[in-house]
């Protein structure tokens, strides 16, 4: 479960990214975080995976304060999460296999298990046979699916997706959301930031809406 309790984020230049945000994402839920560009969606995700610390308030992941996470506990926190970014965050000079295998490789898993898991997750995102392709030669939709396979391969409890469909056409965007739904059905909590209100409305899933760094709405369409 993710809980944000009266969270504010103020940057060094005095700009407030978030002001007094409180909401909860229950375990195994699929929740959208929506709002226009600059509303503070990415800031919320960054705070959850502790790329930044809040200026005020508390962020709890399964009851543990993320701000207190440091060193080994920070690694443990991040290993429970899978992250998907709008700009993919892939290593483009490497193959699809190497990118997807990275979360398991850093956990010290054996070659055989890694190979098996990579095949399984590439199959799940519809990229079977892409193992040896270099990421730089893939289309935007394919890159995002590689990023998704990388986020899912370590079987995280929480998946944070920051505008994963932002750079994609409708068809590719739907495929990405479908894979996230599959992960959610298997028990993962999915928290997805998107500015696409149509997508949020069509799925009828819970959402949190931000505007100018403040929460303006929470509920279901």
């Amino acid at each position, binding site marked *: 479960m993710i809980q944000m309790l009266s969270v504010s984020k103020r940057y060094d230049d005095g700009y407030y990214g978030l002001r007094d945000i409180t909401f909860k994402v229950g375990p195994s839920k699929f929740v959208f975080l929506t709002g226009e560009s600059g509303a503070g969606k*990415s800031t919320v995700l*960054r705070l959850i*995976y502790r*790329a*930044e610390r809040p200026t005020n308030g508390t962020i709890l992941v399964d009851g543990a304060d993320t701000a207190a996470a440091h*060193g*080994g506990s*920070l*690694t443990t926190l*991040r*290993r429970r*999460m899978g*992250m998907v*970014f*709008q*700009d993919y*965050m*892939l*290593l483009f*000079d*490497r193959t699809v296999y*190497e990118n997807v295998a*990275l*979360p398991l*490789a*850093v*956990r*010290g898993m054996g070659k055989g298990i890694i190979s098996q898991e990579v095949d399984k997750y590439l199959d799940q995102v519809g990229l079977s046979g892409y193992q040896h392709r270099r990421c730089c030669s893939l289309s935007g939709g394919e890159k995002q699916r590689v990023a998704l396979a*990388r986020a899912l391969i*370590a079987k995280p409890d929480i998946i944070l997706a*920051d505008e994963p469909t932002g750079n994609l056409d409708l068809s590719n965007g739907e495929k990405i959301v479908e894979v996230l739904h599959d992960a959610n059905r298997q028990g993962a909590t999915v928290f997805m930031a998107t500015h696409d209100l149509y997508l949020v409305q069509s799925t009828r899933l819970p959402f949190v809406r931000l505007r100018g760094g403040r929460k303006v709405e929470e509920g279901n369409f």
Partner: protein
Amino acid sequence: MFTFKQTLRDLARHPVRTLLVSILIAVLMVASAGIYAMSIDVRHTISEIERTHSVNAYLLRGLDQTSIQTLLEQMQKNEAVARAEYVSPADGLKKLETQYPQFASVFRDLTRNPIPPLIRVYPVSVQGITGLAAELRSLAGVQSVEYDEGSVQGMANANVFVHSLLLYVLILAGFLFVAGFCLMAFSIINGKRKETAVLSVVGASNLQVLLSTPAHLVAVWALASVFFAVVFPSVMRYSTTRLKASFSWVTPEPAGVVYAGAAAVVLLASLACLLLACVIATVLAYRIDEEQRREETLLE
């Protein structure tokens, strides 16, 4: 283990880039060590050339052997004197006959030996030759002192010029070495910034994130050192051969010691640069991990 494997894969993934960077660092190392060793060689050669200069101390005629021996010992004890040798009038005449065989009949017709007895004094350095000549002149039993003043002055000037030149070249080589090495290191650090950010996103441990770039730097340095170890002896062998060909009469210093010293100095300097680069890479990785993720990942 992950970092080690990842580093090897990184090197193998871009073989041309890896080789070029390693070779470039090795070239910088060989050039710097070569110039350092060459400066030692040149200094040694100059001092050998200086040792060929001598001061002739002509003795009074009729000086007995005991007095000559005393004078010789007195001169040999002087700190400014490398060595001194007595040339008797008979030996002097013999040398003249050997040097000028065309005048053999003239030498044969001489009724008495006109060559005065002399002590040939070889100074430690040409710099103090004027003072040494004055000292010798003041000794009892010495009639006159002579040396090639023009040649000594020319040698002294050349010596100062060569030493200054070597110093400048050495400073320049050192600067180029440090600048080149740091440039290579920073290009590697820069190239690894995204990987560092990705590693922390996929749940790598702090150690894996922080060691990723330093491990790469160490691997490239190790490869460069191997190239250096292979190429440097050959370069030095070649330069020694050339030096010996030009100055066959120069007794070379133990080459192994000189070149091992130069190699050790350069390796230590490169280690210092490597250490600095590793510290910078680790600090950068730490900053990416702690606070700069925003710029490095989401907004890059």
